[in-house]
């Protein structure tokens, strides 16, 4: 027989389903494009410029570091691009261009390459970048946010029916509704100074009305489609869910972490999310799920492979942990939003979670 010597000899299995790391990473980028398209639609080309700035900086920095480390340059695998994109998604459209650049540099160097690159970083690099920016330029990160044209920052449109009857306090309420993100409004209302500055009884009444305004169907619709103010990638719940559905369908992310993360937020926000003066409502958990960075975090960052548990039960613990921390930060913490810090914190616990949830082999009896 001819060509016998050329036969390939290798260990089984001899076939592969065809997935590659590169394929996975670019698919996640693809899944993020609806969110990017929505934000460009809402805020114009600047959203795209900021996003690409973050992504391209990350790619260049990774290539440079790999060159210095004298290791193969692997930026084509898409992981650096994804990190940069996710970082930029956590920045608002009014931010200066250097913000995503510095963020991406920090994300790739301190968040990823110092540990040896893809697969070895203990915490999510994009979130490291974001945490660094938030700690270094807190006002740049949170001031100058822009609402979607024709809508308010908070998504509450019917200001008149909520607050016009409150003599002398209407302006304050109006400012809050139009210039703060939904979660910031919720945080401000929970803060007693807002109430006491007005006068006790009327204050509670007003706070309650605004709070109810947050969970009205109209507001939730604005939250869902993205007619609010927010960070570039977080703005439209719909666009994020579209991308998430794609990743779930393609088997790229697994359901446990997002489900238990969102489920925990759902339950806890329903139980504890209300404020005095407002009726507890089933809309409240939806408000918490659609607002802020929760969907972006739950589907695209808490599912990051390297920094989350590999065991099935570990993923459940991770999701619940993220949910509990998010709610604690949102309801009692100093920040209006807690998604990125909760994921970062849970990332740190990942090795421990993997260790204690190591699966029992099929047929193994518990000792």
């Amino acid at each position, binding site marked *: *027989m001819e*060509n*016998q*010597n*050329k*036969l*390939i*000899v*290798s*260990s*089984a*299995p*001899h*076939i*592969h*389903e065809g*997935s*590659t*790391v590169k*394929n*996975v990473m670019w698919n996640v980028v693809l899944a993020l494009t609806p969110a990017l398209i929505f934000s460009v639609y809402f805020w114009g080309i600047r959203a795209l410029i900021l996003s690409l700035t973050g992504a391209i900086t990350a790619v260049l920095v990774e290539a440079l570091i790999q060159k210095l480390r004298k290791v193969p340059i692997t930026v084509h*695998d898409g992981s650096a691009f994804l990190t940069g994109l996710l970082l930029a998604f956590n920045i608002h459209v009014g931010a200066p261009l250097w913000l995503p650049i510095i963020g991406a540099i920090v994300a790739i160097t301190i968040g990823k390459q110092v540990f040896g*690159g*893809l*697969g*070895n970083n203990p915490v999510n690099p994009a979130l490291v970048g974001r945490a660094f920016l938030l700690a270094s330029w807190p006002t740049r990160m949170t001031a100058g946010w822009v609402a979607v044209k024709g809508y308010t920052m908070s998504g509450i449109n019917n200001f008149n029916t909520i607050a016009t009857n409150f003599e002398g306090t209407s302006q304050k309420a109006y400012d809050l509704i139009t210039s703060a993100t939904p979660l910031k409004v919720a945080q401000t209302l929970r803060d007693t100074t807002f109430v006491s500055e007005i006068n006790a009884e009327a204050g509670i009444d007003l706070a309650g009305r605004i709070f109810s305004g947050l969970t009205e169907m109209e507001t939730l619709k604005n939250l869902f489609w993205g007619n609010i103010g927010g960070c570039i990638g977080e703005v439209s719940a719909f666009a994020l869910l579209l991308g998430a559905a794609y990743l779930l369908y393609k*088997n790229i992310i*697994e359901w446990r972490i997002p489900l238990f993360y969102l489920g925990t937020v759902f339950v806890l926000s329903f139980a504890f999310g209300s404020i005095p003066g407002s009726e507890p409502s089933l809309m409240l958990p939806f408000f918490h799920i659609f607002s802020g960075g929760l969907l972006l975090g739950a589907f695209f960052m808490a599912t990051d*492979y*390297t920094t*989350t*548990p*590999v*065991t*099935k039960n570990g*993923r459940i613990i991770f999701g619940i942990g993220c949910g509990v921390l998010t709610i604690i930060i949102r309801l009692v913490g100093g920040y209006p939003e807690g998604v990125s810090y909760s994921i970062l914190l849970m990332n740190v616990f990942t090795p421990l979670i993997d260790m204690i949830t*190591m*699966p*029992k*082999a*099929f*047929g*193994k*009896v518990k000792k």
Partner: protein
Amino acid sequence: MRLKTFPGGSHPPDQKHFSSSEPITELPLAEKVVIHLSQHIGAPSTPFVKVGDEVKKGDLIAGAAGFVSLNQHASISGKISKIGKFLHPTGIMSEAIEITSDGKNEAIQLTDDEDYLTFDPVILRERIAKAGICGMGGAGFPTHVKLSPPKEKPIDTVILNGVECEPYLTSDHRLMLEKGEEIIAGLKVIMRTVGASKGIVGIEENKPDAIDVMQKHCTKEKDLSVIAFRLQYPQGAEKQLIYAATRRKVPAGGLPMEVGVVVQNVGTAYAIYEAVRYQKPLIDRVISVTGSMVKSPKNLRAPIGTSFADLVDFCDGLKGELGKAISGGPMMGFAMPSLEASMGKGSSGLVLLSPQEAHSIEEHTCIRCARCVDACPMNLMPLGIVNAVKYDDAKMAIRAGLGDCIKCGSCAFVCPAHIRLVQWIDTGKIRYAAELRN
């Protein structure tokens, strides 16, 4: 209705279309056969012949070297031309007996005991042992050993494995279509031998015609049933099959008899039937010669010891440059260095792939995606085992499941980093053999 299955696993494309509609064809007389002395798990057989001896088809040429060993018989008539090292279907060189045909194909006298089902289990077991039968699904465990469970482990159920979950292979499928009645007869023999009251034939859903045929043969028997399983790899792995069929979990490190079950491949059941009724030794079997590179894929009934090259020739040769020749299926089979190797009792298929299909990309760093964890039918941590082997940590490797791995290949099949998980695990199994025994 939701079909029965097991947790975990993967979904390789089944690729059965190459040969599933090809009826079983007899291979014309081969010029030479090479009968390996190690076609099974256990001690290699002891040769009873020397070079120059004349043998008839069916003559005993090597005997079992102990209880867990096997008899080997001449699969053609002719002269012993060499005893020495030959290429084994697993790709290694191994001791074997070569027979050069005399062209006469003269066979030993067979009997016909129509009342074989009334025989005492001791006689049945004896005839099976004499015929040199081992598991024909691939693992090759001597059948008479499997059918001799100790008294304190009563067997109530026999499962015939007609799942054939390996992609490409269709030999069991064809055998069920063409020899269904004989397979059921074999099942009854097995049940009688181990004293089981229940017989199950398990078949994957992608073989509806085989399910129909086997069901027809079972209609009059209230103790026998056919179960259709979901198309999911490795549905035919013993522990997974038992779980899917009976919901019983074979204890880790234990044998199916611990849960009162014996599993036999349908091909083995057919060989058992022939052995007890006709006293015919296991000297031929059905093998699928398939894959994109063979001109005419076929299911062949070929003498044990036929070279793979002869099989390919009978299938009109190759279409072009061959990339990989796999003995067995593509998930657990062995890539052979050449087609010179000869088929053994466990050779269910020869899969011929193109260089493109055989191409594999370099290993990437593990990105901890956990797809291996989700795909593992044994509920292990494949990436944990591999990392432990890489860092030479025997304790961790065993904790992550090294000893329980059945090497089905699901993890490596889905790994986006293309890490050779099975190869690393094999390395671990060899390197930590002593630790695993403790």
